[in-house]
């Protein structure tokens, strides 16, 4: 579904994504891991067209993506939840959700079933939400596009543990019950590995390790080497 071949991309002349290749099939979920600054978010930005691609090809469902304008990528089935959440503050929760909804299995009803808090808050404005609620809304808004692939950039960052758990359950439901394809960038390595099927480790803008999540969880030396964290054995 998504194929990157030897992609070099970055901001202006600076290269952040350096010879990156990966493929992803429909229904798959990938955890994108790596230390700070290795280009995890930039990889998502590259897929969404917010960086300058110098070389390489990005194919999406058989179509060359590099020249596709940013707004058309969303319409082509790429949903993106950026790290900053970026809720429309002066729109209500419901307006945020309906602003560019596309028909499909995700609609207001199924989003509210996934995030009941959003239904309670549906008349509230974007700036009247807690951080966790904003994150739920950001994910819900991206899902309303009924994307074939959802890109989640550190959704758990800065959330209270209870809320983070609630989000994890929702992400798990998206993957297990709805078969939602997604790429999850996350610093909470353990949680990310428990949620997704496969993990990709980035280092200096390139893929250095690619494994099934259970295998990686059993191979702590790789994690320590590339991600730099000690993971308690599950």
């Amino acid at each position, binding site marked *: 579904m998504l194929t990157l071949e030897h992609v070099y991309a970055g901001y202006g002349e600076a290269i952040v994504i350096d010879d990156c290749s990966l493929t992803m099939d429909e229904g798959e979920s990938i955890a994108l891991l790596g230390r700070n600054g290795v280009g995890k978010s930039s990889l998502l930005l590259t897929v*969404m067209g917010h960086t300058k691609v110098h070389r390489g090809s990005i194919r999406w469902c058989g179509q060359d993506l590099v020249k596709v304008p940013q*707004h058309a990528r969303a319409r082509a089935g790429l949903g993106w939840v950026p790290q900053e959440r970026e809720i429309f503050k002066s729109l209500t929760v419901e307006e945020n959700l309906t602003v*560019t909804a596309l*028909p499909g299995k995700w609609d207001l009803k199924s989003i509210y079933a996934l995030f009941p808090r959003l239904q309670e808050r549906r008349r509230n404005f974007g700036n009247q939400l807690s951080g966790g609620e904003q994150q739920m809304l950001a994910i819900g808004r991206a899902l309303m596009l009924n994307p074939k692939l959802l890109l989640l950039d550190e959704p758990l960052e800065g959330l209270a543990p209870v809320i983070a758990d609630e989000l994890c359950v929702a992400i798990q439901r998206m993957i297990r019950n709805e078969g939602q394809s997604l790429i999850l960038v996350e610093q909470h390595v353990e949680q990310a590995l428990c949620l997704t099927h496969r993990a990709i480790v980035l280092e200096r803008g390139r893929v250095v390790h690619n494994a099934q999540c259970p295998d990686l969880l059993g191979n702590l030396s790789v994690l320590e080497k590339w991600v730099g964290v000690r993971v308690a054995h599950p």
Partner: protein
Amino acid sequence: MSDTLARDSRHLTFLRARERWKPAEIAFWFALVGVYFVFPTNLIFVSQILITGLFALSLDMILGYAGIVTLGHAAFFGIGAYAAGLMAAHGWHEPLSGLLVAGLAAGIAGYLSSFLLSRGGGDLTRLMITLGIGLLLFEVANSATKYTGGVDGLQGVEVGKLFGVFGFDLYGKTAYAYVLGIAFLLFAFTRSMMHSPYGLALRSMRENQTRALAIGIPISACLTNIYTIAAVIAGIAGALLTQTTQFVGIDVLSFQRSADLLIILIIGGTATLYGGFVGAAVFMLAQDRLSNLNPQYWLFWLGIILIVMTLYLRGGMLGGLSRLADLYRHWRNKERP
């Protein structure tokens, strides 16, 4: 965008609920009909308020909803005013077709200039570009005295009977009904547009352009559309002024008109649809009363009003009113056991 949404009935129910006219809105328009009977001697003045309100509504579409700042919106008002004036002065006296041509002329100008605005750049760039276009057109009208009459204004504007039946009379009765009818039609059109998914898309664009792009809103196309539509409405407002006063002064293109319009919209409240009309009424009544009090210094009072309002009444008159209504509701709920 709207056709994809229309397929999902759930979204439609939600949007229809928003679209229903509220009692206060219905009262607003009936009150304007009532003015015709209650204040028959002030119809000319109220017509002017309505025209300015309509003009401010067109600014609200681009500034309030889409977040495009401009200091040259009078350009489109002026183009409409001159288009209608030139037609009427050169033998085409039918008013409705005059409005159409004026709207079309302003729309073409809006469409062309929208490309200058969508070429990146921030608010400052847009302020300068719109200011530049406004000044440019003013000087064109100023120097083309042969066609526009320059600073003396365009003379000899003769407007025929409305529907071939109702002549424009000295008391402005026909003019008032005509202006009110056109203003209402354009308002209803704008209202339904702003309550559609397209309106939501504009508001998202105002909030955060990158994010709007990321969820599939074609920003440049939206900008071009809304700027063109706003220019058409501004042009029609200009034409209404020409037809009801049977004269075109060069001030229709002046910077002062663009600046006043901004003040009017901010006094009334942005992104509310009614802010323009409320602002126009407050501004023009204040101008009328304060200049009666002291003809030379009315701008002094306006300056004070403007500073106080922007500092303490965010969201303008309508924003203040809705906060008062909230407080009242809150208080009433508390009173209840």
